[in-house]
């Protein structure tokens, strides 16, 4: 693909993510509010929150090092890199040859690791607690994630993301096959765990002892907090975007040109909104799991992924 097409796809994906991530969070809050019988804030409220946060003062704990200041920046940078490389709006993102699923997952992990390090750098017990729990959940979710990627890659003989999405587009029977469905189920549980949604973590809790992700960001203020919120919402959007493109790829742009890109963007927005709303509905009806019950949930997800891999081999 030529440079102009690459740049336009990259721009559309980036702008879409930066604006769409907070809107996705706003939408999920709105759905939750409506189900609770309230009207709820506008779906663009998180964007207003971000705008206000950028005008505020930055605060740092007095004995922290550069890692604390670097963590929000690294988090957003990793999500932006993935946003450029991943096949979200088009099956031909820039540098499509290097958009390996394994690589994408690990790039996102860099962001989480830096956030955990920044939390430990605050010198408070909350930061330690948040990073300890978040890293434990991540460690237990990773086997399910990688085996699910293996299961998805076996039929396509590659773990390259654009190739996987394209494979789903051209052969719908691949998507409806048992290994694919099982792997996607497993992936969904892992996505809930990695982005800190119920039943793994309650993003709206105020009780520090029940926090996993929120405890890591209690010290950030102003633009740092804006970056962290933006990073988290973009990460949720990217993960859900990948999920929808692997499960319902129709609508994604397969050619270049503004018409295709517009269609791809609209399709992505609609699908992600749908799945996001579904997740929000699920959250309303579920309670947060006890921390020591999480290994059971993640082991279940691992089992699904292993089943997916086994059926993928058997079906070949």
């Amino acid at each position, binding site marked *: 693909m030529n440079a102009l097409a690459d740049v336009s796809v990259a721009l559309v994906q980036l702008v879409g993510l930066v604006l769409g991530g907070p809107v996705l969070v706003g939408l999920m809050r709105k759905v939750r509010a409506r189900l609770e019988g*309230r*009207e709820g804030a506008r779906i663009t409220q998180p964007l207003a929150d971000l705008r206000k946060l950028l005008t505020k003062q930055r605060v740092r704990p007095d004995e922290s090092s550069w890692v604390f200041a670097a963590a929000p920046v690294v988090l957003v940078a990793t999500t932006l890199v993935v946003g450029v490389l991943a096949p979200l709006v088009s099956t031909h993102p820039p540098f499509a040859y290097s958009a390996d699923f394994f690589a994408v997952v690990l790039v996102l992990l860099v962001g989480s690791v830096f956030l955990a390090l920044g939390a430990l750098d605050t010198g408070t017990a909350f930061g330690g607690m948040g990073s300890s729990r978040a890293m434990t959940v991540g460690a237990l979710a990773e086997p399910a994630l990688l085996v699910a990627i293996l299961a998805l890659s076996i039929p396509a003989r590659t773990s390259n993301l654009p190739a996987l999405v394209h494979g789903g587009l051209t052969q719908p029977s691949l998507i409806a096959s048992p290994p694919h469905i099982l792997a996607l189920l497993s992936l969904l549980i892992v996505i809930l765990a990695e982005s800190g949604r119920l039943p793994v973590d309650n993003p709206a*809790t105020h009780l520090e002892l029940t926090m996993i992700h929120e405890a890591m960001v209690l010290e950030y203020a102003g633009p740092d907090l804006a970056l962290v919120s933006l990073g988290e919402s973009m990460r949720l959007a990217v993960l859900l975007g990948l999920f929808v493109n692997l499960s319902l790829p129709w609508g994604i742009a397969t050619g270049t040109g503004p018409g295709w890109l517009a269609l791809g963007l609209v399709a992505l927005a609609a699908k992600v909104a749908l799945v996001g709303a579904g997740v929000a509905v699920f959250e309303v009806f579920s309670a947060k799991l006890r921390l020591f019950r999480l290994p059971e949930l993640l082991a279940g997800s691992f089992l699904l992924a292993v089943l997916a891999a086994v059926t993928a081999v058997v079906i070949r």
Partner: protein
Amino acid sequence: MTLRSMLAALTHPRRDAEPRDALASAVTGVPALHGSLQLRHVDAGSCNGCELEIHSIFSPVYDAERFGVRVVASPRHADALLVTGPVTKNMAGPLAKTLEAMPEPRLVIGLGDCTRDCGHFRGGYGVEGSLDDVVRVDVHIAGCPPRPEAIVDALRTLTGQ
């Protein structure tokens, strides 16, 4: 609160521009919040009557969240400190620390009559003083406890929604 006024609140969820229960002090020098207000609540020694009203403004009946208001878990995330009750001796230090932890620009909102003149607790042995004595207060919401509509109206003047 009569049944009639409650029904009126349910059928007219959106209030009009002017707040009804007047604010004790004019709102001056308020930073531009762009329609987003995050609150950190500190109970400096209240009887919890005001806390019940805070709970009710986030309930489906009054739903302050639709005006861009949210309660957050850490003062570092907050724009305004929402204080209830007189400032007791034991809570004076933590209150000061909470305010110091907030990033600029920051506001202090005193909720209820106790924050202005200690209300029923004036002269108590555990009371340090009213909020006015301890810190510069930007917004007062009068009442013992203030009515939820008054609280929501006050917050709306801050968010502008």
